[in-house]
């Protein structure tokens, strides 16, 4: 379980107002909302990265920021091994499990700057899985990916949640949130305006985005690529 | 207002007592030894005991930088300087009508005799010059000729005294053979082929890498004779003291 009660101002500008947020193990929570709503700030606050808020035990909470890039040409296995830094070990088993979960066994020794964007994103995901933290925080893990790659990542996160992890994902794509999340939290102007099952929260999300209400709110069958 | 200020400045110009200004460390020492009462000002280096044999006397005398304006303000009868260094300042003084006497700084004892007498006559103290030279010759005459040992005068940064230098003249006057001959000597070669005698001047007060070289612990075991730091800087009647310090 992870919980946060906070009001956050960055550079004198209020970003989050009176947020009270809790997530339970086994849940995949999607944080949705338009640009500037405070999603990433909420995720960073949950990760304990904001000054003034309590920090987190890095073994308990793993965080994947938006558009994370590697400054060096590390191999896929080396990136995954970074997830062991909080434990101060380089235990082989969790790293191998994370690589297998992310479908990266054949790319272990490939350099992350020489593989496709989707593969590199999966390497970053393998890094937070290798920590084996009970809580996973991911900021737009599917941005810029083709639909098949995006569905593959969401399906993996869902499996992790079903296995007992607390997974909180910032998502721009409302259809992915609708298809995979157990719960959808909609933010607007730094406030939580809806917090419910995706089908119930979608109208509020659509309004926040300025989209016409009446979007197809029925869950779809998962595409075969993600199964 | 400005006119009055200018007038005030001009007045304090002309009001000074006249005398001789020396702008070079070596001519400073001649001037102080020959005619201290005629000193209008010396170079600032003259008061430095690591460079000047007359530092104690010079400390009580006025000093001036080699700057035409500063010298003109003293209105000296004439200016004593070397024939190198500060030449633009000297030319500026000459253009303003100041008499400048240049000294070709002597590096051996015959030249020291000539220069001492010339400067003594210019200063009108010929007897004093003759007395200084007599004292110098008496000191030199005490040297007993022995075997011409090989000696290296080690200077900062590992340079050695070259042929025709003051240190070379002092070595020969002391009955030694100059083994360095102007080569730059690194410590390793020096230790591998040590001279019979190593001559070094005591390091001056200022630290420098060049003089740090002379304090290297590896040199401690070589037979060494130390001279006061000012003794080999300028050639003059006082150079006989360095000869006496080195003679066997």
């Amino acid at each position, binding site marked *: 379980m992870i919980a946060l009660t906070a009001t956050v101002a960055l550079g004198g500008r209020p970003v989050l107002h009176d947020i009270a947020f809790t997530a339970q193990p086994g849940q995949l929570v999607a944080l949705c909302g338009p640009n500037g709503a405070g999603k990433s700030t909420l995720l*960073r606050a949950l*990760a*304990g*990265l904001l000054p003034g808020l309590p920090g*987190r035990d*890095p073994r308990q*909470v*793993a*965080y*994947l*920021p938006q558009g*994370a*890039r*590697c*400054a*060096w*040409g*590390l*191999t896929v296995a*080396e*990136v995954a091994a*970074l*997830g062991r*830094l*909080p434990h*101060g070990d380089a235990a082989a088993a969790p790293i191998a499990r994370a690589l297998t979960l992310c479908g990266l066994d054949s790319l272990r020794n490939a*350099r992350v700057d020489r593989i496709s964007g989707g593969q590199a994103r999966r390497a*970053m995901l393998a*890094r937070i899985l290798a920590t084996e933290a009970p809580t996973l925080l991911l900021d737009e893990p599917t941005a810029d990916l083709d639909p098949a790659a995006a569905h593959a990542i969401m399906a993996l996160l869902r499996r992790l949640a079903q296995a007992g992890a607390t997974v909180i994902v910032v998502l721009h794509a409302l259809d992915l949130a609708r298809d995979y999340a157990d719960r959808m939290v909609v933010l607007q102007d730094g406030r939580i305006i809806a917090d419910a099952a995706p089908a119930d929260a979608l109208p509020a999300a659509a309004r926040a985005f300025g989209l016409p209400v009446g979007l197809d709110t029925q869950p779809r069958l998962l595409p075969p690529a993600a199964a | 207002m400005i006119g009055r200020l200018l007038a005030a400045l001009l007045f304090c110009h002309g009001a000074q007592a006249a005398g001789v200004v020396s702008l070079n460390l070596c001519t400073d020492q001649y001037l102080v030894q020959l005619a201290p009462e005629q000193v209008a000002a010396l170079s600032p*280096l003259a008061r430095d005991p690591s460079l000047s044999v007359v530092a104690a006397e010079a400390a009580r005398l006025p000093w001036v930088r080699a700057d035409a304006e500063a010298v003109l303000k003293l209105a000296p009868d004439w200016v004593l300087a070397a024939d190198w260094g500060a030449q633009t300042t000297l030319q500026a003084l000459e253009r303003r009508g100041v008499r400048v006497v240049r000294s070709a700084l002597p590096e051996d004892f015959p030249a020291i005799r000539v220069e001492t007498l010339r400067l003594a006559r210019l200063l009108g103290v010929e007897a004093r010059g003759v007395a200084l030279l007599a004292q110098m010759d008496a000191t030199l005459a005490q040297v007993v000729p022995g075997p011409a040992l090989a000696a290296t005068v080690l200077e*900062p940064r*590992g340079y050695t005294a070259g042929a025709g230098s003051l240190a070379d003249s002092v070595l020969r006057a002391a009955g030694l053979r100059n083994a360095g001959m102007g080569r*730059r000597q*690194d*410590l*390793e*070669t020096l*230790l*591998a082929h040590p001279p019979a005698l190593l001559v070094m001047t005591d390091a*001056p*007060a*200022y*630290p*420098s*890498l*060049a003089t740090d*070289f002379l304090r*290297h*612990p*590896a040199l401690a*075991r070589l037979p060494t004779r130390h001279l006061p730091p000012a003794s080999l800087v300028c050639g003059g009647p006082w150079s006989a003291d360095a000869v006496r310090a080195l003679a066997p």
Partner: protein
Amino acid sequence: MIRGLAALVLGLTALGLLLGAAGFGLPQSEILWQLRLPRTVLAGLVGAGLGLSGAVLQGGLRNRLADPGLLGIGGGAALGAVVAFYWGLSARFAPALPLGGLAGAGLACAALFALAGRAPSAPSLILAGVALSALASALLALALALAPNPFALAEITFWLMGGLQDRSLDHLALAAPPILLGLILLLRLGPGLDALALGEDVAQSLGRPVGRTLLWAAIGSALAVGAGTAVAGSIGFVGLVVPHLLRPQLGERPAGLLPAAALAGAALLLGADLLARAAPLLLPLSQEPPLGVLTALLGAPFLVRIARQVAP
């Protein structure tokens, strides 16, 4: 690889004891212990400090052009050492010399991080480094010109170009403890540098906040580079070149480079110093070429190559 580098360092150290102005071979004990030993060990230590500090700075700043010399840390160290030396502080209290180097290098590090910001991009960092280097050499020249010693200015080449000729056991005793301490501090930074590979947020979420890593990198570099520069002058490019030579063999992970960078830096400077000693024996030269000139001859083409790779 590490074992090979260690063997290379040992071999070059042995050569360093065998080669000198007096010729090749085992010299008399005074030459061996008082001249060749301090010189050789200092070359190894100073080189190790420069190489390791280069690898740590490149990792910490996530910039392939980072180098203690290019970034002005060497210049700051030389300035601090010059002030301590020519103003007579080190004559009264010998450890003032390495302490001056440490203070100068530490100030340069602090100014660098302040100028370049906390997430330094390549151009802003290099510009800040160029500005710092220029300021440090200007202040160095000023300090030498105003020093009480009228001959101090003539020694600017040593401080800008470096050299190890005729260093003594005293120099070794002054410089070795801070350099060794700096090496130990820098070698412990591996995990923090690795964590920074994915950015500052990730580093913090992994329990390795960037501020702490950079602070220790600055302290370690100040110790390793500052004390080395205080006795050997500023020697450039070793820290730049070493990580680049190692990455093709060892991979790009910053922590994986650290021990090898210390050894390779030592080997590089030992080799350059041997070259400097051999030059007057092989060529009609009256003196040794300055050590920093040799490393610059080696490093400048390297910098051009890296700059062309980095350029968009």
